[in-house]
């Protein structure tokens, strides 16, 4: 398991290898909470402008510009405002947030307090996926330390601004990573997404203005305040600012969490050199899912020799998406029908059941996959799978439906042989 920065100074990963980096003492010794001190001396608008200037895009998968999201929150609100950290990290292939929470919890807290100050929110929540329950005591301890040190609670650092942050675990549902479902769950209801609009920035937790951001989004904020928005942006590209964490798994020699500047060039070098290349030297690269399971799968031809830059635009151009940066590398031993079946089972299991196409569609898809795997594949099955996906895509209530359709659509298109093989098997 490798954790390191390539092509940039470790910013997100700054304390990954520092002993006791999760403690307040070490955090402060290594420059922590300096940004908060700076931020409370700034105006709210200035902070938001810095975040806008940084071109920080949400690290939870959708890549929505964070500064813009913050500016949607009404300045004046008769209701309380909330800052929520999305630590539900459930996207298959993504495991970056967990290291931040485990080894650098104060960075998350600092980012949340700065957000709270900038937005005028005096309550924050960190929502953990159920399986991250084991991390909660680390974060709770960090919150306690911060409270004891006057960094959190009443009159933070003498600024007159008060804020508290609470932790909460879900029961282990992927859908609770979707921000509105997360809010439902946080309120104690079933984890169902809610209708948008209204967006959480206007009507979120308890129908009050709420900003939901990913863990890594929050940990980026202190860096932005410290070095200034444009400086941070210029670590990456014009449109994709800063650095980004990548979770690499699968058939590479050195899987792990890597920090790369946005616009890193190129994807082939990253996999073949930085990550040590293919796990087994005699096996060729077959496929990569670059951004967590919910993006299009890429075949080797789309990567090798194609100079794919690792940023939002580069991956779209290459035929996929950055998503959460959960990169899954597969060599030629992988049967894409089977890997896609596996993912589809995940989506069937995680469909919340609210809407027809996702609930019934994923169930049907899995049944077709099962039949194919059991040797009952029919010539029309590929077309059937594609049509079911088409009937889900763009028609579901929340993006999970799309996320279930995309891997299948791209897999059948980009690996037709792997499907034909099964149909012709018997």
């Amino acid at each position, binding site marked *: 398991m490798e954790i390191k920065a390539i092509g940039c100074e470790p910013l997100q990963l700054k304390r990954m290898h520092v002993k006791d980096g999760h403690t307040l003492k070490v955090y402060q010794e290594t420059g922590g909470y300096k940004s908060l001190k700076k931020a409370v001396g700034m105006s709210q608008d200035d902070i938001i402008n810095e975040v806008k200037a940084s071109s920080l895009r949400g690290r939870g998968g959708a890549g929505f510009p964070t500064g813009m999201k913050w500016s949607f929150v009404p300045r004046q609100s008769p209701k309380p405002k909330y800052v929520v950290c999305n630590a539900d990290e459930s996207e298959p292939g993504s495991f970056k947030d967990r290291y931040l929470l485990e080894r650098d919890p104060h960075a998350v807290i600092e980012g949340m307090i700065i957000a709270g100050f900038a937005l005028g929110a005096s309550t924050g929540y960190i929502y953990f996926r159920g399986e991250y329950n084991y991390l909660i005591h680390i974060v709770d301890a960090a919150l306690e330390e911060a409270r004891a040190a006057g960094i959190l609670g009443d009159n933070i650092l003498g600024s007159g601004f008060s804020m508290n942050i609470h932790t909460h675990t879900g029961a282990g*549902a992927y*859908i609770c990573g979707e921000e509105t479902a997360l809010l439902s769950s946080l309120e104690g209801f*079933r984890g169902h997404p809610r*209708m948008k609009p209204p967006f959480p920035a206007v009507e979120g937790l308890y129908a009050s203005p709420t900003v939901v951001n990913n863990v890594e989004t929050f940990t980026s904020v202190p860096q932005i305040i410290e070095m200034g928005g444009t400086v941070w942006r210029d670590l990456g590209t014009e449109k994709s600012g800063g650095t980004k964490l990548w979770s690499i798994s699968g058939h590479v020699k050195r899987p792990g969490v890597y920090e790369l500047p946005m616009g890193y060039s190129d994807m082939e070098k990253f996999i073949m050199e930085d990550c040590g290349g293919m796990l087994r030297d005699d096996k060729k690269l077959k496929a990569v899912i670059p951004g967590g399971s919910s993006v299009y799968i890429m075949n080797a031809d789309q990567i090798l020799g194609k100079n794919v830059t690792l940023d939002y635009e580069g991956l779209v151009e290459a035929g996929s998406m950055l998503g959460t940066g959960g990169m899954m590398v597969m060599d030629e031993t992988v049967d894409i029908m089977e890997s896609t079946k596996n993912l589809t089972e995940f989506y*069937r*299991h*995680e*469909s*919340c*059941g*609210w*809407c*027809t*196409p*996702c*609930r*019934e*569609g*994923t*169930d*049907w898809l899995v*049944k*077709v996959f099962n*039949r194919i795997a059991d040797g009952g594949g029919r010539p029309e099955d590929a077309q*059937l799978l594609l049509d079911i996906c088409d*009937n889900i895509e*763009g*028609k*579901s*209530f929340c993006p999970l439906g799309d996320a279930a359709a995309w891997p299948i659509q791209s897999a059948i298109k980009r690996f037709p042989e792997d499907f034909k093989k099964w149909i012709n098997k018997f």
Partner: protein
Amino acid sequence: MSAELIKVTINGTEYEVDKGRRLIDVCHENGYGIPSFCYYGDLEVQASCRMCLVRIDKMPKLQTSCTISCTDGMVVTTTSEEIEKAQRSMGEFLLANHPLDCPVCDRGGECELQEVIFDWGDVEERFAENKNAKAEKYLSPIVANDPQRCIVCKRCTRVCHEWMGEDAIEAGNRGANTVIGTYGGWLNCSQCGNCIEVCPTGTLLDGTYRHETRPWELDQTVSTDPYGSDGMQISIGTRGGKVHRVVARDRYVNGLNGEFLDVKARFAHDFVCSADRVKTPMIRYKKGGKLIPATWDDAIAHVAAKFREFGKNVGVVASPRLSNEAVFTLKRFAQEVVKSDSYAVSDVADQAPFFNNLSAPLCTHKEIRYATTILLVGGEPEEEQSFTAKQIRQAVRNGGAKLIVVNDTPIRLVSSASQFVHINPCSYDAFVAAFIGGDKSAAKKAGIDAKEIDAIRKTIDETEGEFILMVGGELSANAQAALAGTASKFGGENRRALLHPLPRYNNSVGAHDMTAGRKSVEEVAKDARALLIGGSLQNASIIDGKDFVVVQELFLTDTTLRADVVLPAASFAEADGTFTNNSGYVQRVRQALEPLNQAKADWMITSLIAREMGVDFGYNFAATAVFKAIADSVAAYEGLRYPHLKDESRPASAKYEIADRDVADALKALSESAASLPDETEKISETPKIGHKLHRLTTMTSKTPQFHLLANGNPKPDSLFVSPLVQFNLDGTKRESEAAA
């Protein structure tokens, strides 16, 4: 409130609509059919079935028309290849795991899923895998459930939450495993059955009607609820001379209550065709003897002869369950046949003082739903006027209305209230003396702080829109008079004050209207030597020792025990007539069945006796003529005729006199009554159990076996797969051998 008009183009035609209207409604109103399942006008938008997809210019993807508010210049397409494919695919998805067992499904023929699919006619079925199997079961004695048929539209859970405030059912599990379930596996709710009604499929089923008929074999008769004073409109489903079910389904009936009913209105209809009905006239020839069947001719002749003997000493009592026609005819009998003013209505919660002191108009149920502030003094609408309660809940929940509850008991509606004024037991007089009369010491007697009264006033003063004062039937005459008589004073520049009574019976209001100048039941019972009673008395002992008692009844009751002649009356389902509800709507009761056995409509029985005694009421034996006579003699009903009452969706109102009232005497009496109350009393702290009135066994409800289980604690059976009626005796104890067998 004049809404801004905007232009929307639908399929190439431009329409002017109110800004912000829901697109699906606008499309439907203009004749563009859009299939939909989860959308339900009176519930929050769910947008989960994804059936109502349309294309809107300048928007990415297809949009669900149930979530779209119309904006100016919106260009909408509701039919195209793309849309049809999307909609058909939703149909295909919904059918994937749906058993195709329409031929044995109670909803077959009324199922919205079936209809949408049949409308297309040629839905391709490509799903060739195994369907997810789930077992059929019971959720309560009343609610049966076939989870396989569920399309997870969650109308049921929304109805339970939004209409009933009960949260008794919710979805469980996730994804394709989602099922609608209960907490603890058994429904311990009020059993209103609204979830069954709004379910578009055969998932939630009327457990009292399982497999009795196919819906299309039923004759549907629109009528009025024979239990509550809200005047809920129902459709009675009959076949072969039997009432099989009662529904409020939109496709049959569109009354003020929409599809809402309560447990009694919907399920307690077995009394109509009960074997216990009085089948023939019966005469007790000798005091202490038996009731012996007789012919109508003999019975009428016997009664007439006896009544002639007693002359003016015949008193008449009408039940507030009877139709206006029946009560009016009974009153005429007293006035015109025996020529006495000895007539009464046997209503234990008589609201005459309320109606005689109206200073503000009665409100409609729609006005309750959109009220700004509601002050509920006394009553327990959630158990007695269930539709009123639903409107109150939605006014608070969806409309942000403020509810102030004044009660000596923490009734369930308190959970919706912004202020609960918890008065001492039976201290309404003191409360009203304090609230209306400003009597400070009375507040103390009511066990409340003067500040609480100030808070009520402040809320009312700040109200813009409608302020509704609801008055419970258990309040004393003076308290009712003082509240009704001063309601108008709560109006203001931007505020309209309205009144809403909470009478106990289906026709309490009409019975009051029909019998101006009546006496109390006790007075009549005391003064008369002979009695003609329509229906039964709440306390039959008051007629002990009378010389001659004639009772028009459906059943043998405490009152018929004391009767010398019992005449079999037709139930509400066997006679035409009208009931007047608590907002003054005069609504039709329609004959759905030929009178059973030898029963006759109450007004007809009374008229026959009158004719035998030489007075012809001139009805020509048609209910419509009785009603015309009512309209000609009761001022509030002037000009009304049956044809005006034809359309239940546009009810006609009785017109009550509204005037400034002098309530000084009432207030003085209230203060005196307050002064006589003890200073310290213990308050009632327990919230009454859900169903404590709704599930009570009465002459009528007890004929439906399921009500016995409800009244006996609604025990959860060992097996959910077999009807609880098989597993329990009616008293709620376990049935031994048969269940095992």
